[in-house]
Each structure stands twice: as structure tokens, then as C-alpha cells.
């Protein structure tokens, strides 16, 4: 049986970087040769979600949404556009396994830890897991808290706090949530783009990856979604789905 993997991204009409991590992870996974074919599809780029299976000879396809939040896109838009009816569906005669948002996967905490360590986090450091969040959708915060708790349970850092771009607790107050001399902010976003590269550094008045403020240090890590090891998390999610009947 020919096995396929479909990575689904949001994509953007305005930001060319939005889809880059999805392409990069797809290429890494292609090189592993675990699947007979690996495709990508996007809500706002091409191939469109609604045409993702066109002409595909894979008979057993695992769909992994490269989304941080579990919510509107992963529970409504993607299933609707792909014609799915649950975690296992039949679409045009092929078996389709649908994992949840990669943002909920337990192994994503490993990537957050790697990003934090790359930015200098250690036992005396606080780590701030930064999510988008929005007051319009209470679900959008769920995976951010979930992953921050997983990181905290490992006991690797002095403190692990959760902050948001667009809701409380807000990232502007990050230094109030810990007494650590150094705080490493890890953006739990899929892509380096408008928020990670522009709005967050501007709003926090960061001077680069390392900012000293009131005698304390703020280090700014890269986006979690662009880390090469996210491909391993995607593969774990796909392996788990392979056991579903």
C-alpha cells in the first residue's frame, strides 16, 4: 500500500515566509524516505486544501496540520476542505488519517526546550513560552499553556511562564512574572514572519537576540515551528496515526 504524508499549513496572501517551515519540514521528511510521497497544502497558498488529493496515488495518507492552536482551522476548515469526517476517513477510496494540530503533541515540548537552550537558557534562567492568543477564541491559548506545563515539569529551568501577544497575561509584563535575572522568550509560532520578526520585537523594544533592561537580561529565541527537529515531532504524530484502524 502506498503511504503518503500531507503537511497542512495556513499560508498567507501577504507574508512569503509563512509557508516556509512547512516546505522545509516536508523536504526533511522526504529525505527520510519513510513515505512514498510527501505533499504540502495550504489554506491561503497552493496547492489549495480542497485540491490536496488531486492526482495522488497514495492509498493511505496521514494528514498533519502544522498549526499551533487546536481550534477553528484544525477542527472546522481543514476537515471541511479535505472532506474528512473524523480522525480516520475514506476520501475518494483512500484511507486518510488526521492527527491533531502539531501544537498539541507532547514532543513539541522537546523543541521548545531546544529553542530555549539555544538562546542560553539554563537552571538559573526563566523561560517564557510566548503564544499568539486572542480574546476572540478561548481555544487558542490551550496548547500554549499545555506545552508550557510540559516544559515546566521537566525542571530544567528556574521558572517557566506563559505570556501572549494578544491577550493576558501579556508579553509586555514578562519581567513581572519571574525574578530570574535572565528570561528567555520562546515564541511558540509556526513561522518567522510578521509577528516573530516584527511586531513582537517592536512591542517589547528588543535590541536583538539579547536585550538588557533594568539590570536584567531578555533573550529572544527563534520560532519553535522553524526548528529542524519539528520534523521529528511530525513523524511521531504520523507514526501514532499509523496504528489507527
Amino acid at each position, binding site marked *: 500500500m502506498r503511504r503518503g504524508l500531507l503537511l497542512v499549513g495556513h499560508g*498567507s*496572501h501577504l507574508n512569503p515566509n509563512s509557508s516556509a517551515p512547512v516546505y*522545509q519540514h516536508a523536504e526533511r521528511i522526504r529525505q527520510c524516505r519513510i513515505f512514498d510521497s510527501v505533499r504540502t497544502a495550504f489554506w491561503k497558498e497552493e496547492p489549495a486544501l480542497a485540491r490536496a488529493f*488531486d492526482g495522488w496515488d497514495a492509498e493511505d495518507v496521514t494528514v498533519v496540520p502544522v498549526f499551533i492552536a487546536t481550534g477553528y482551522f484544525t477542527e472546522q476548515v481543514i476537515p*471541511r476542505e479535505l472532506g474528512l469526517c473524523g480522525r480516520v476517513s475514506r476520501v475518494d477510496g483512500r484511507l486518510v488519517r488526521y492527527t491533531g494540530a502539531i501544537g498539541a503533541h507532547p514532543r513539541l515540548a522537546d523543541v521548545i526546550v531546544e529553542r530555549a537552550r539555544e538562546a542560553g537558557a539554563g537552571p538559573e534562567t526563566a523561560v517564557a513560552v510566548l503564544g499568539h492568543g486572542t480574546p476572540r477564541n478561548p481555544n487558542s491559548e490551550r496548547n500554549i499553556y499545555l506545552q508550557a506545563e510540559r516544559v515546566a515539569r521537566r525542571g530544567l529551568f528556574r521558572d517557566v511562564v506563559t505570556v501572549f501577544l494578544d491577550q493576558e497575561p501579556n508579553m509586555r509584563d514578562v519581567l513581572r512574572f519571574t525574578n530570574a535575572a535572565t528570561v528567555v522568550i520562546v515564541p511558540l509560532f509556526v513561522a518567522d514572519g510578521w509577528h516573530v520578526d516584527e511586531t513582537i520585537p517592536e512591542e517589547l523594544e528588543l535590541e536583538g537576540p539579547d536585550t538588557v533592561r533594568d539590570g536584567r537580561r531578555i533573550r529572544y529565541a527563534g520560532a519553535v515551528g522553524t526548528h529542524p527537529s519539528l520534523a521529528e515531532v511530525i513523524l511521531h504524530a504520523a507514526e501514532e496515526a499509523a496504528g489507527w484502524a
Partner: protein
Amino acid sequence: MGVEVLDAIAARRPFRLGELRAEPEGDRGWVVRGPDNGEPREVPAEASAIRALVRFDARGRYRPLSGARGLPGGWFVRCRDAAELEWVLETVYPLALVHLRQHAEGSLRVVGLDAALARQSGRYAVAAELSPEGRRRATSVVCSACVRVPLWAGARPAEPGAIPCPEPCSVLISFCREAALWERERPAPATDDPAAPFADFEVEGNPLRNAYLRAQTVEARGRA
């Protein structure tokens, strides 16, 4: 439509696809060329290198729509064989060869604008309120900026290398959302700004927005 492209690949004959030209080289290889524009430079046959090139127009504007006219020129890619050729074409025009094959076989699933708008939700639900005249106008404006031929709008391609489009794209859906709002607010067309983002239809200088608003104004005068 499209049979000539598929036949040309099989028979190793030169062909066009959208704004690309391809020609056989040596025993098995191919060369894919962008539009003529100055001294061509070679680009490696790697998806990331090709995307870095074709996702921006000559002004450096992001091209979110692969078929948007104005593919940057002055480059070529050497492909080892037909498989690499197909990968390069897929990178520039996703699913184009799949849709050409399905269209030639008569198996291409076609979905129209009414059905595509009816299934939208969230911030795009309002797009379904666009009037029939607005839908026709939006299709005319957006699809004329694209090399894909909208089968779903009844178009029948005449140009060699035409790519069949089986379903309205996300750019057109997004445009219909804005057009539905313009039917309420009736903004006036502004001066085109060639630097305006291709698919940011809230920007007053956006050329597609203004083409639509100008056509809307002309049609309204015609009815008056």
C-alpha cells in the same frame, strides 16, 4: 487543452506552460526558462531555490498566486530528466500537470464559484453575500490576472500551454469577501499603486481592487 504539453514531454519536444518554456537538452535532460528578461542566469533544480525566485515579481512584490501574470524572467533551470522537469514545473505551478492530465482524461473535478463561496465560514462567510454581478466582475478581474484558465467559469482555453483551473482559488475567495463589503460601502476607485501588495485588497492602490471598482462604477452608470 493540455494534451500538447503532455505529448511534448513524452515526445521530448519544446513546449510552453503558463509563462514558462521548456525544451529538451541532450538525451534525457530538459531546460526550463522563465520569461525573457535580460541575460539569463542558471538556477539550481531545487524547490527552495526556484521558490525563492518565482514567489516575487520583478518589483520584489510577493506573488501569493502561482499563476499570476508577471512571472520574473531572466533565469533557467537544467533538469536531469523528465521526473526532475515535472518537479520543477510543479514547484512553479502547483498541480498544473495533474490538472492537465485529469482534464485530458475527462476526470478533472470542477467546482464553481457559487459552491466555493457557499461553503466559506468565519471571516469569509460574508463572501457568499456577493451579488451575481459582483461574482462575474470579481472573476473577470482576478482571473484575467492569472495564466490559469477557469474551467468553472465556462472558459475554454485557446493559448498553447494554458493551465486548467478547476476551482476558485483562495485569492479569488478573499477578493469576493472584500467585494461583498464594497457592495455595502461603495468606495470610489483610487489611483493604482503598482507597489501595493498583489492580494491586499484593503489597500486603496491595489490594482485589482481598482479594476473592480472602476468596472462597478461604469456598470452602475450604464444602468442609470
